[in-house]
């Protein structure tokens, strides 16, 4: 049986490689947010970029956000996992290097080559541009994505190596002996369980992603090498959906590690926790058909699996991780600072975002809401309020000079700006989705513009708040590498000490 007494842990500073990831993530995230804001301003008719620029920005925003979510999530996972297993710093840096090379290829493709085939690069659009971009531009984009994916594959392989070296197998690292046998209370810690799950799903997804990218690159120059568009779409969505989902499962490690330090309560890998993560390993891989529900060419059973797993996937989020966060904070006397607030908010964002998500995965609902603004509405809820809040919570944590270091009024204002901005932003998306407003449109019908204007206002608030988060992180970067206790103890625990 797991016991629920808290054992203090050493608070390690971040290694230079992790900080390089976080600085890159902060800069690119902010830039991609600005691109997103420009898109909303264009749809709101406040500016006039034109359709070509809009779709270029849309392509960069999508590809950039997915990539940078991966970088930020990997930073969180690597930082904490490195306390339990021996990871390679060289591989960590190699991934960042490959990521930057990939980014350069993608930027060149879009900004020089005018590629605007969206981050989903659905076959055969990249090779069929109506003369608007060249094969070379498309190849640069696909190659950039391939290089980025290869970097992440190397990172995941190193993590797999380190986990197996320490625990013997993925099954042991997922805590299966404790899940299916006697619970001796010695299951791997949540960080290891989560990292193992992420590694399993990402290894498969990245290989599938690399395969379709390679196939499409061949097709660009040898058109006689045909690809089944349905197969291509399935592979792209499998890769993309698993990868972006995995970023949340990486970043939530910050919650598992940091909230216990604030509450002085343990977050244990008990049987329910282990069962939930093993179930999530399967569900994250098989949920992707909920993006393909309107592709009637797929087998009906496969689409029904997407529908059913969409519902089931809410259980680990709500009943285990979300509920776990509520339990650990309830009557804990927690000291609320920027880090603890953002991490707790992130769990709300994840749980709340799962609601419109699973409903959209209902086949009959998808029939009238697929590819409307409802879709970015739900994924911005759990990515913006969820995943990104986890990352900024982690950044604020690392940047703390000492226990009890106070937040500035600007920090606190930015927190509320981010919270209100994100809520208003995602609700404007969701409401527009209810009104059947199409996503990925450079120009909106006149009756749709008011939603865009409301969305643009809240998006501005998000960008301004994020700018504060990023600047504060950069200003406090010098504290991020040192080993010192950061979390302020709960009041009564402090008195007892």
């Amino acid at each position, binding site marked *: 049986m797991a016991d629920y007494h808290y054992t203090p842990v050493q608070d390690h500073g971040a290694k230079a490689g992790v900080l390089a990831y976080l600085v890159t993530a902060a800069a690119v995230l902010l830039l991609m947010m600005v691109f997103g804001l420009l898109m909303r301003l264009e749809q709101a008719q406040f500016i006039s970029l034109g359709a070509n620029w809009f779709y270029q920005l849309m392509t960069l925003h999508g590809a950039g956000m997915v990539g940078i979510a991966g970088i930020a999530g990997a930073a969180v996972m690597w930082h904490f996992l490195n306390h339990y297993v021996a990871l390679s710093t060289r591989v960590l840096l190699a991934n960042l290097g490959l990521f930057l090379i990939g980014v350069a290829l993608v930027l060149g493709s879009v900004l020089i080559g005018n590629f605007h085939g969206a981050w989903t690069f659905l076959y055969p659009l990249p090779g069929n541009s109506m003369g608007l971009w060249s094969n070379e531009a498309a190849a640069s984009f696909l190659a950039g994505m391939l290089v980025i994916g290869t970097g992440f594959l190397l990172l995941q392989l190193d993590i797999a190596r380190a986990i197996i070296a320490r625990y013997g197998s993925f099954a042991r690292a997922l805590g299966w002996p404790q899940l299916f046998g006697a619970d001796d209370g010695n299951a791997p810690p949540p960080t290891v369980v989560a990292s193992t799950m992420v590694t399993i799903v990402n290894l498969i997804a990245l290989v599938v992603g690399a395969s379709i990218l390679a196939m499409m690159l061949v097709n660009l120059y040898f058109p006689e090498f045909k690809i089944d568009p349905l197969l291509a779409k399935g592979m792209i969505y499998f890769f993309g959906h698993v990868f972006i989902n995995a970023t949340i499962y990486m970043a939530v490690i910050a919650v598992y590690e940091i909230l216990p330090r604030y509450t002085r309560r343990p977050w244990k890998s008990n049987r329910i926790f282990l069962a939930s993560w093993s179930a999530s390993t399967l569900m994250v891989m098989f949920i992707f058909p909920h993006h393909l529900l309107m592709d009637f060419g797929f087998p009906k059973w496969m689409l029904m699996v997407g529908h059913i797993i969409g519902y089931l996937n809410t259980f680990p989020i709500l009943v285990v991780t979300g509920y776990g966060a509520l339990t650990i904070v309830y009557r804990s006397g927690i000291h609320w600072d920027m880090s603890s607030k953002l991490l707790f908010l992130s769990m709300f964002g994840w749980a709340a975002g799962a609601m419109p998500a699973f409903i959209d995965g209902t086949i*009959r609902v998808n029939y009238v809401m697929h590819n409307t603004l409802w879709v970015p509405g739900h994924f911005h809820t759990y990515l913006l309020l969820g995943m990104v809040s986890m990352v900024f919570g982690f950044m604020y944590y690392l940047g703390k000079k000492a226990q009890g270091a106070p937040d500035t009024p600007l920090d606190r204002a930015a927190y509320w700006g981010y919270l209100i901005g994100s809520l208003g932003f995602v609700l404007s998306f969701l409401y527009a989705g209810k009104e059947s407003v*199409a996503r990925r449109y450079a120009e909106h019908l006149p009756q749709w513009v008011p939603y865009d204007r409301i969305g643009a206002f809240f998006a501005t608030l998000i960008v301004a708040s994020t700018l504060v988060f990023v600047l504060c992180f950069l200003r406090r970067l010098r504290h991020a590498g040192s080993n010192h206790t950061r979390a302020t103890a709960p009041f009564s625990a402090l008195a007892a000490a």
Partner: protein
Amino acid sequence: MLQHIVWYVSLSLMMVVGFGWTFVVLKSGTREEDYTPLQKRAYRLRARFFWLLVALFGTPMVYTLVDLPYDIIRPAQGAGTIQAVNATGYMWRWELSHDRVEAGRPVEFHVTSADVNHGFAIYDPDMKIVAQVQAMPGITNTLHHTFGQPGTYRVMCLEYCGLAHHNMTTEFTVAARS
């Protein structure tokens, strides 16, 4: 309309989640030092929460699988002979074999694409989506729909297909049944 139900249900569920988080924040100030009994109480409550969710989510999950758009024979179909319409997507226009169908009689849209992926979405006269399917090269998807109300319906592309994606639209008429 389904979209309204979806909006209110989603908003309600998100608010319930929000209330849960707010409640815990409000209750976070005073520390209960011994975590083990609190944890046990929380686990007992979680078991109830789990079964509540099973009932709350399980029922619609199963119920909504009864009438799927993939099925050829659907309970909501109208009576009468089927009206077949071939729809082909091109960058960036739609080609329909007929631009007039009758309300109250089932329509079969045979949807495909001549080039890249498109999304064939039908908007009613109030500009709300009533049905959609993907248009994909080399594949013909059949969309079954029976229009209840006469009027001018619009087809819009809902799968990103390049520069003029947002302009890829056409119209057809749903006439009163003769």
